[in-house]
């Protein structure tokens, strides 16, 4: 089976998922992102790499925050950025996803940054570009359904490496709604590929996918046990619509059992870092004292996110 993310030379053609990318590619992206962090400190925060290129942010599902980070990254690379909120336009009129893609190709797009509510949608687009021999157009998955959010996973790895230097000696815990989380899937894929020896997930059974162990993680249901001696705590966002009903009785009970408080965090190593992909639900998955505390690296994650996305875009556009 052809790996749709790599071209014939084994270079990154699209970034669709971290699952299926070799360690060398993940490491290369992290290494490349490193010098991009310095650009933000300059008087002119702009590089000429994507000058004359058109990056289309095609968001079939609204997300101002993610779209903005991609927009900043593309603009810092001097690309022309076109934001399309497809959620409110064409598809409502019955246009198919691939019709939309064909139309944007006709507008001389060089890169699509795609957010879609359906798992696998960016694969369909990449496959279509391949079948129509548009090999110069690249796709970046900005989140598809529950499947993947590869740039988020990469910026998380960048953050971990920044604070912990190495991966091979870490214990990492991912806490919360793994079942519905594309972020968690990308994190698990990246952590296991980069050689983290122990990746834990901590959640009630209702929020874990069937056979989650097959992804190479250890399952915990108890926070105290799951956080014991971990180096990194990665919190997940709990969507509002999942807080009451058949998955969870209430946000209050969730916070009581799985919310990250200073007391629970004390089980982790003293130098453990706390991460969150944002936006946070304070008092649901994380206590404000922890979110604003000395172990939280949530804002650096956002800053690193720009550099990581710049690295990904410039690696793709130059392949």
């Amino acid at each position, binding site marked *: 089976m052809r790996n749709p993310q790599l071209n014939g030379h084994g270079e990154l053609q699209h970034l669709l998922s971290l699952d299926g990318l070799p360690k060398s590619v993940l490491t290369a992206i992290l290494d*490349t992102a490193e010098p991009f962090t310095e650009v933000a400190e300059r008087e002119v925060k702009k*590089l000429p790499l994507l000058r004359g290129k058109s990056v289309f942010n095609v968001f079939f599902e609204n997300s101002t925050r993610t779209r903005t980070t991609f927009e900043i990254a593309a603009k810092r690379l001097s690309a022309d950025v076109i934001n399309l909120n497809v959620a409110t336009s064409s598809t409502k009129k019955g246009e198919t996803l691939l019709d939309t893609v064909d139309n944007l190709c006709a507008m001389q797009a060089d890169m699509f940054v795609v957010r879609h509510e359906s798992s696998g949608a960016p694969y369909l687009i990449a496959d279509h570009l391949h079948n129509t021999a548009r090999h110069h157009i690249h796709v970046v998955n900005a989140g598809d359904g529950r499947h993947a959010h590869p740039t988020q996973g990469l910026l998380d790895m960048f953050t971990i490496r920044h604070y912990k230097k190495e991966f091979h000696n870490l214990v990492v815990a991912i806490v919360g709604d793994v079942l519905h989380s594309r972020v968690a899937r990308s994190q698990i894929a990246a952590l296991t590929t980069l050689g983290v020896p122990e990746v834990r997930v901590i959640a009630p059974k209702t929020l874990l996918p069937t056979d989650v162990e097959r992804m190479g993680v250890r399952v915990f249901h108890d926070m105290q046990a799951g956080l014991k001696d971990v180096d990194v705590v990665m919190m997940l966002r709990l969507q509002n619509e999942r807080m009451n009903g058949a998955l969870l009785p209430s946000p209050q009970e969730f916070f009581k059992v799985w919310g990250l408080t200073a007391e629970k965090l004390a089980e982790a190593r003293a130098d453990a870092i706390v991460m969150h992909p944002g936006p946070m639900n304070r008092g649901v998955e994380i206590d404000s004292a922890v979110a604003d505390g000395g172990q939280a690296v949530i804002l650096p994650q956002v800053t690193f996110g720009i550099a990581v996305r710049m690295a990904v875009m410039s690696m793709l556009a130059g392949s």
Partner: protein
Amino acid sequence: MQLPDAESMLHTLVEQMRPNMSANTALVGIHTGGVWLAERLHAALGLSQPLGCIDVSFYRDDYGSKGLHPQPQRSGIPFDVDGTPIVIVDDVLYTGRTTRAALNELFDYGRPSRVDLAVLVDRGGRELPITARYCAHLMTEPLDCAKNLQLERDDSGQLELRLIDA
């Protein structure tokens, strides 16, 4: 072909530069050979401004055809560029494209009062209107364009020129 000795050229370069150094002159080395050279020059000239370094990967004009350089390094300019006289340091001057990229990058940090270029070797073959104010050795015989002339540094910190296949 006998290549000139890098260490003795370094001394020549120091002597060329010394009369023109002012109190706030700053050196900026271009990765990788230029940075090694700039480190030595910086020490020899006793400059007070901290040393800057630049990786021009993000400014190269062949990105469109060759893609991003595989392992770009972090650039670092630890002084205020505005109003500062700067000498860009590189090991070899060839087409001038690297210098062009370095100038572009430098100006994204601010407006220097002047910029000069210092190189160990000028191997000819210029494609842009660029010349080095300080140059230790000018090659009169053109080199095979399929060869790269570049600086290497051994474990003891000694510099040496090498000709390798591009």
